[in-house]
């Protein structure tokens, strides 16, 4: 059993690495079947980000559960912001992460933290160039990565002419993103491959929920809200939009921030708005669209990302897809660095969703490489990474078709969305 006191997240991170190594060694040596649960309860004093965290790491083995209380006085359930347990399957530990909560609970707005933000534009651009120049996976690695990319897609239709029929087609495609026979030839047909969600306008949520229900799928329905894409409607109607989308069955809400507030530096007001949205979302996960094309500078993007995370966003998302400039790699680097910074300070992992203009399988691979490079494999999971796209899936399917058959597909050979 491990029982440790840690006083900062950095130290905690170190300990988990130690434990990770310890367990790996242990398994190699004894080859024992052991299940272990890592409990971690941390209580960051909200608002004080000097990261004074009292933590407690407990490990349970062989079903025997023991709990040590932080400071000896507080019951585990009451400590801090919530308790998450992660049961690991028997076998060598491959993934051991410190997570306090499945969702980002947010923190107080810390303007001092914001004021210290520095972003060097040319260094970010250079980094983006470097990442684009990295070698992309080939052969079956490429195909596996593309299928992974498909599993990250929020399959989206956001058009004025959306009707129940094309939303239905979209839902069916989301459930079966790649032709069954192709998946079968790679032995991937029974692995439950779907896109991550479907994403529609609030008025189409009900249609999407109905279609998915009819197909016996539990695929989440995401809805854009809060005056998408510009956010230029009164706060009251924006909040109502969220509530109605949730009522209709959306389990993920993509909100847009108020760019007026961001551009004029009213972070406090922006924070309060997003907190209200988060309350309105209830159990639905909230993705905050920063509309980075409108924000002007990287520093602004970093600050907006940080405020959105402090206000409790589960994801931060680059753009609506309706701005002149959409998801670009340099912007993504700034945002994922903000995510990393937030994780280092609070221990919460916030997800990232680039959206708009991602059309080719090649681009999808670069996006995955970027996340792997900057945030590591932990983030390559649909609960922390999404790709907002509509036509990308078709290209991925074509590439997969080529890998499996060795031929290039004609458009009519692949099912339309």
């Amino acid at each position: 059993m491990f029982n440790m006191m840690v006083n900062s997240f950095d130290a905690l991170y170190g300990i988990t690495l130690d434990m990770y190594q310890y367990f790996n060694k242990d398994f190699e040596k004894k080859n024992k079947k052991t299940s272990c649960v890592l409990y971690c309860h941390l209580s960051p004093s909200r608002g004080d980000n000097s990261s004074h965290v009292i933590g407690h790491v407990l490990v349970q083995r062989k079903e025997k559960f023991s709990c040590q209380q932080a400071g000896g006085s507080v019951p585990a359930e009451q400590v801090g912001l919530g308790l998450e347990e992660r049961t690991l399957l028997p076998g060598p530990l491959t993934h051991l992460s410190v997570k306090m909560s499945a969702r980002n609970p947010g923190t107080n707005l810390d303007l001092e933290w914001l004021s210290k933000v520095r972003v060097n534009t040319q260094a970010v651009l250079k980094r983006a160039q470097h990442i684009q120049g990295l070698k992309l996976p080939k052969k079956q690695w490429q195909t596996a990565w593309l299928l992974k990319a498909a599993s990250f897609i929020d399959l989206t239709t956001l058009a004025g002419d959306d009707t129940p029929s094309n939303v239905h087609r979209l839902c069916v495609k989301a459930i079966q993103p790649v032709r069954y026979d192709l998946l079968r030839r790679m032995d991937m047909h029974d692995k439950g491959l779907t896109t991550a969600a479907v994403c529609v306008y609030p008025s189409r949520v009900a249609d999407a929920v109905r279609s998915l229900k009819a197909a016996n799928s539990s695929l989440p329905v995401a809805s854009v809200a809060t005056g998408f894409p510009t956010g230029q409607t009164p706060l009251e109607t924006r909040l109502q939009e969220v509530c109605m989308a949730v009522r209709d069955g959306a389990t993920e809400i993509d909100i847009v921030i108020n760019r007026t507030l961001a551009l004029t530096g009213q972070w406090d007001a922006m924070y309060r708005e997003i907190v209200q949205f988060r309350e309105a979302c209830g159990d639905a996960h909230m993705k905050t669209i920063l509309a980075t094309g409108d924000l002007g500078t990287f520093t602004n993007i970093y600050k907006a990302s940080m405020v959105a995370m402090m206000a409790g966003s589960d994801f931060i998302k680059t753009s609506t897809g309706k701005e002149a400039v959409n998801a670009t790699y340099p912007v993504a680097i700034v945002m994922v660095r903000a995510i990393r910074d937030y994780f280092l300070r609070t221990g919460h992992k916030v997800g990232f969703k680039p959206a708009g203009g991602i059309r080719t399988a090649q681009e999808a691979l670069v996006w995955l490489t970027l996340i792997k490079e900057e945030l590591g494999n932990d983030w390559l999971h649909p609960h922390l990474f999404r790709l907002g796209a509509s036509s990308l899936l078709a290209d991925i399917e074509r590439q997969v078709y080529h890998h499996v058959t060795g031929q290039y597909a004609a458009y009519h050979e692949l099912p339309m969305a």
Partner: protein
Amino acid sequence: MADSTNPTVYDIFQSMEQGPAAASSTATAQAWLDHHSRSLGFFMDGKFILPADRRSLSLTDSKGGVVCSTACAEDADVSQCASSAAAGWMSWSSLSCSQRAKALLRLVGVLGLHGQCVSELCALCEASCSPAALVRLLQYYSGWAQLRDTLIPGWTPVGVVVVVSSDDCSLYSLMLRVLPALAMGNSVIVVPGRSAAPPALLLAQLFTAAGLPAGTLNILTGSDVTLGAKVSQNPDVRLIAYCGNKQDGLALCKASAGMGIPVSVSSCVGATCPFIIFESADIDSAVDEVIQIAFKKKNEVHWVLCVQESVSDSVVARLKLRMADMKSVPLSSDADRVLVDAAVQEALQQGATLVQPCGASSGAQYPPTVLCGAAPSSPYVVSPPPGPLLPLLTFRSNTEAVLLGNHSPHGHAASIWTEDLTLALETAKSLSVGSVWVNSSSVSDPCFPVSGHKDSGTGTDGGQEGLYQFLRPSFSSALPRPSPVSLEYSKFGTEAAQVVIPDSPNGDSIPQSYPQFVGGKACKSVSGCSVAVQARGGDSVLVFCPDGGRKDVRNAVEAAIKVQPGWMKKSPSARAQSLYSLAKGLESRRKEVCASVGAQLGVPAKEADREVELSIGRLNVWAAYCDKVQGGSPPMTQSGAALSFPEPLGVVGIVLPDDAPLLSLVTVLGAAIATGNAVVMVPSQRFPLPALAFVQVLQSSNLPAGLVNIITGNRDQLTVALANHSVIKAIWYWGSAQGCQYLQHTCTSPLKTLRLSWQQAGEGRGAAPDWAQPPPSLLEDLWRNAVQWKSVWIPTA
């Protein structure tokens, strides 16, 4: 079935492994090597030559396989190569500027055709150089070949240049010396290090195919760098340019001592460079850059990470996250592994903590490792082991960052990270390194003049400033070179001075005793001894001057180093004012000084007066130069701004010639202090009287006390004292060939910049220029020798 080398799609889907890197093809390079039967010879007279039964060295790749073998040159090859280069020089230098430019430009086309082969061969031999970088070099220097006579009038090529590199030097560094030498019209003998040899041979072949006259570019390979000294014995060789690690550079300096050839050393390999992260930095970008540059397989420099204390936690946290999944770096041998292990063990014992990716590594590879809690005195900081280790030091304030950065014998480059422009420029100014990269690192371009500071070099490379080493003022004729004599270096300058006893002491005219000038005070020598000074051609004792020695030099240097930084920071116009008033001071004491010149040289008053007149004029010329010696803003290849500026060397030791004792003193003094240096001068041993008279002028001047020091006495003895003081950064020497040889042999640790001129015995003019009417190129040569160049890169979006 799935195995580790061929996993199923589902395996990868879960693990998200990147997959094996596709091995890059080396077919073209292999074909070229096969064409040469994998044993490479020399390249001279425009063709490959491989005499039979030469000893050969095999070059192995990273996996231990033999790539090819290179031959070791013997005496016959050396002399054949030298005569090939001499012939090449004749044909190459007789071409017009535009013809040379055209030939270099044609290479760009040839390189376009064969770039694949060059880059593959570089990759095979681990002599990294991208064809794009080579093309950039060629284009830049073909431009200079075209414009030489237009923009640098009054200068001619030196002759045959020997370019030497050590085994670990990259092809790019090598070509950065070869191409400017060619562009200026010299022919070149390249003595490449082991890894750069095959690509250099290939390039020589391609260059000849592009129409470079036979013999212009020659390649000679051997077992070590002293081959460079061997080939330099040929009288046509006029310059040795060296790049590579420090030890080989010093060996080359010692081996070529006494040949009368300047050696321009650039120890760009193996230098320790600070990577400074201030709290005002974009920390994420800084950490990304560190990770990209510090753990490469083949690092030319060793980085030391210096982080401001207030942000060190967040830097370390980011390093941990980013390094968690990094792969181990291959080492060059198992022996290196032992060294690295020992260094890490030692670091751990001293309380360092490691940041390493998880997972162990074995054999000849090592995981990237950051050693937190290093100190400047830690052994792995002082002499870094060959592996992916990065020491991390913390500092408290901006000034401490500069102190840390400067506290190393190396002065190659530094990278500083801050979003605060003022802080960036202040730090860039204060660091004594050749290149400063602000918010970036390891960028280079031939249009930037860069001098290695401290032990990192004695020459300037790049830009127009870097061309002068391959040129000489056209007024001076090529001199016969002395040949090295066997000199007992430890005994040099210890011979007792010849005692002169005044033969006819007549009571009423006891010769006067003059003081020397140390730390702003006229004083006797520490030893208290004096020596007699005789007039030219006479036997009678004119005056007595102090017999200065080691301790006088020490006092002078101490005084000089105190005032030099303040003098350097003065505005150029303030320095000009001081020099103008010095000229005025000389004017007001004209009579006394005239008398001393006349008495010393035994010349009529008119001639003495002329020398004083010229000296006054010369001081005014240097005063005018003060604010004209300036840097610039070279164009950058990417967007952003860059600065290049000349910086004074520091304290310069000067041993003055016998010719025109006052005028030469004033000319050299003016060059040194106009550019911001302090000087310790040794006037001519035979004719010190004018210098001693000048002491009175200095005394009444408003130059800071200690900026100019004049110590008289035995020249050899004082030369030894100057050579053995580490604060002195440069020595300008006019004197015997033995003295030159002594200095070249001795001034290697720490490295001093030497400007040596030997005078033949007797009254011969030797290397001395015409002091009275120097062409502009002489003065230019002087001030260029008094400065070192620094480039500051500030890339922007």
